[in-house]
């Protein structure tokens, strides 16, 4: 009898442990990943999700890829960077010259604090690199564990979609991961139109298309087609907002929980940051207990906003902005960093950025947020 009880207990333990491990495995974000060659044709935008999963925006394939980098060894701080002639260095690593390469994006793995770079060479070959100290390393795009989702065209309920229409190509303008969803802004190469997608991750067949509407100060009109150039998610008063910036350069807040498929959402314009400019990257950080938001631009210095200033700005800008190139709305500070081409948060206390300096040199630098 004792033997029977012993073996029954062992069986129960075994079943419990199997059940527990199945349960854990069942919740793994990479369960549906496959191993092989994802056949990535282009890398425009990058963003990291949890567990070292890197999302790649492939405009040519109109597809978002999720790659398991397995780069999950946690570090508190990233490597300090101060490399001049950085474009020369990247080109040399690719056996090429600066006029034949383009750095499309730079992101930091929030776990390992490793810097990743998306680079294109002139024949279109996409390359993913990472920094190991001041050395560049290749991140292979073949023989990887991955999943993917194609960016489908939104289909209207009343559409007669039984005939084959060519898919629109959406140039992916920004990509972020937030609370189980991959958020994608895109721009059509045919009609003047923009989309904002919210895609659950792990990928299923689902993808929501939010219809966003922005009020242009001085316009007197709402606008649905304006393409989002860069965006981030910020939390104000315990509520998540999509902070979207557009070319020429309104800054607009959309409550994230209102962005649902088929729902037309009006944004609240909180700033007009001046014409003749386009936003590039947005990041947030905490300094001395206060949250800040940085935005780099292609024709303005890096702008610094205080979260509390944005939170306290309850108005919607509808006033006419008549003077050329002036800004209105939420106050911000211009930081002395012009021509910042790429920017991301390196770790709790530092930012990493690629900058074209006044003498034309391209540098990659890290800088403490104490001085930002």
């Amino acid at each position: 009898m004792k033997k029977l009880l012993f073996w029954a207990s062992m069986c129960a333990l075994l079943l419990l442990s199997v059940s527990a491990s199945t349960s854990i495995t069942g919740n793994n974000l990479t369960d549906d990943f496959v191993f092989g060659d994802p056949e990535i044709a282009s890398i425009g935008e990058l963003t990291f999700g949890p567990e070292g999963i890197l999302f790649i925006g492939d405009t040519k394939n109109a597809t978002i890829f999720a790659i398991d980098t397995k780069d999950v060894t946690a570090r508190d701080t990233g490597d300090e960077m101060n490399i001049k002639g950085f474009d020369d260095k990247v080109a040399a690593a690719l056996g090429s010259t600066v006029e034949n390469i383009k750095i499309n994006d730079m992101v930091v793995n929030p776990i390992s604090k490793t810097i990743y770079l998306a680079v294109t060479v002139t024949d279109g070959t996409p390359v993913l690199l990472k920094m190991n100290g001041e050395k560049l390393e290749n991140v292979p795009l073949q023989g990887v564990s991955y999943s993917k989702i194609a960016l489908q065209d939104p289909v209207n309920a009343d559409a007669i979609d039984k005939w084959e229409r060519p898919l629109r190509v959406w140039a992916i303008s920004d990509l972020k991961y937030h609370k189980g969803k991959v958020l994608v802004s895109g721009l059509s190469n045919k009609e003047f139109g923009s989309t904002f997608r919210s895609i659950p991750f792990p990928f299923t067949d689902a993808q929501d298309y939010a219809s966003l509407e922005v009020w242009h100060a001085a316009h007197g009109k709402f606008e649905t087609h304006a393409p989002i150039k860069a965006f981030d998610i910020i939390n104000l008063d315990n509520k998540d907002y999509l902070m979207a910036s557009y070319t020429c350069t309104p800054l607009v807040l959309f409550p994230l929980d209102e962005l649902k498929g088929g729902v037309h959402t009006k944004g609240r314009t909180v700033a007009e940051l001046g014409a003749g400019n386009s936003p590039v990257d947005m990041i947030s950080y905490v300094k001395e207990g206060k949250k800040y938001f940085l935005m780099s631009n292609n024709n303005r210095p890096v702008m610094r906003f205080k979260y509390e200033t944005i939170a306290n700005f309850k108005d919607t800008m509808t006033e006419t902005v008549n003077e050329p190139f002036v800004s209105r709305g939420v106050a911000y500070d211009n930081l002395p960093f012009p021509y910042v081409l790429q920017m991301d948060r390196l770790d709790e206390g530092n930012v990493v950025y690629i900058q074209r300096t006044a003498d034309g040199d391209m540098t990659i630098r890290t800088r403490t947020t104490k001085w930002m």
Partner: protein
Amino acid sequence: MDVIRPIKSLKKIKYSLVFFCALLLSIQCKRQKKGGDFELSYQDGKAVAFSIPWEQDSAALQVFLSGEGETPVLGTQTTGDGRYTFKPIVPFLAGQTYELRKKNELLATFTVEHKRGPAPELLAIYPSRDTVPENLLKIYLQFSQPMQEVGEVLNFINVHDLTKAEDVSVFLKLESELWNKTHDRLTLWLDPGRIKTDLIPNREQGLPLNDGHSYTIHISDQWKNAQGIPLSKAYEKQLYVVGRDSKKPNVEAAELEVPKSGTKTPLRLDFKEAMDAVLMRESFHLQSGEGIKVGGEFTVGPREESVYFIPLKAWKKRDYEILIDAKLEDLAGNNLNNLFDTNLEEQLKSNPKTSIKSRTFTID
């Protein structure tokens, strides 16, 4: 011709290298070029690997751009059968010289030959007509080959206002340039913010094109294809700008030329205005009155004003329906549902939207 120069310090290896590139480059399968003991491997016309005889430890071997002191070329290296092989992560660059080094010792240099494929051509600039409205929204450039994927396209395009006798900036600068998948067709937007009435760019800079003005679009012959070969020549297109187009294309008003039954005469639908050249190719579908697809093909007519449908089989006596994607636009970006420059709130109140418009006809 690829060139390799023997280096004194590596006495055991003697290189004599003669490469016959032109013939090999035109072949799309993997080939190897051999010269003495040195091999440069090609795939799809690109130099993807090189190898040399090597019996020693290869751990310290690295490939560099000629003259580069610090950063080696990234790639994979293998040894076997008495050879060392290096495969860069992107193909070696045509015209570039490389060095194989062991620590600081230079072992060999080699130069990859420039490709001799045909020069790319600019096949078309759309709209193909030269008279355009002042609110023209976009133009397309159609090339004969995939073009370079780095650099800014606006560096190769100059627009000159002949009326004002000055160069002008009219196109929207985009970080994500709008190419098709094969990278041989570029979409350029005339700055939409300047076209839409009262937007800040419109107030500050005015319309990109002005009524009554003439312009020359100049395409530089320095624009290269993906293999680094420049356009065979420079190109120019004249634009004569007329007044604003503030009307939506009207499917009902389009002229329909209905063929006779028993013939294969093309069906013609003429909008009497130029439409978007790319959307015209993919916005039409023909079905019978019962909703069955009719075999055949739509082609775009002269100056992108009309489409023709040529049936596979002779027309029958029956009802037909042309389905048209409502996203089809005219040159000003006005689609079948909405004007490009419109007050959205008024638009929402107005006409019900359908994503497909249709036009029916009967062949007796």
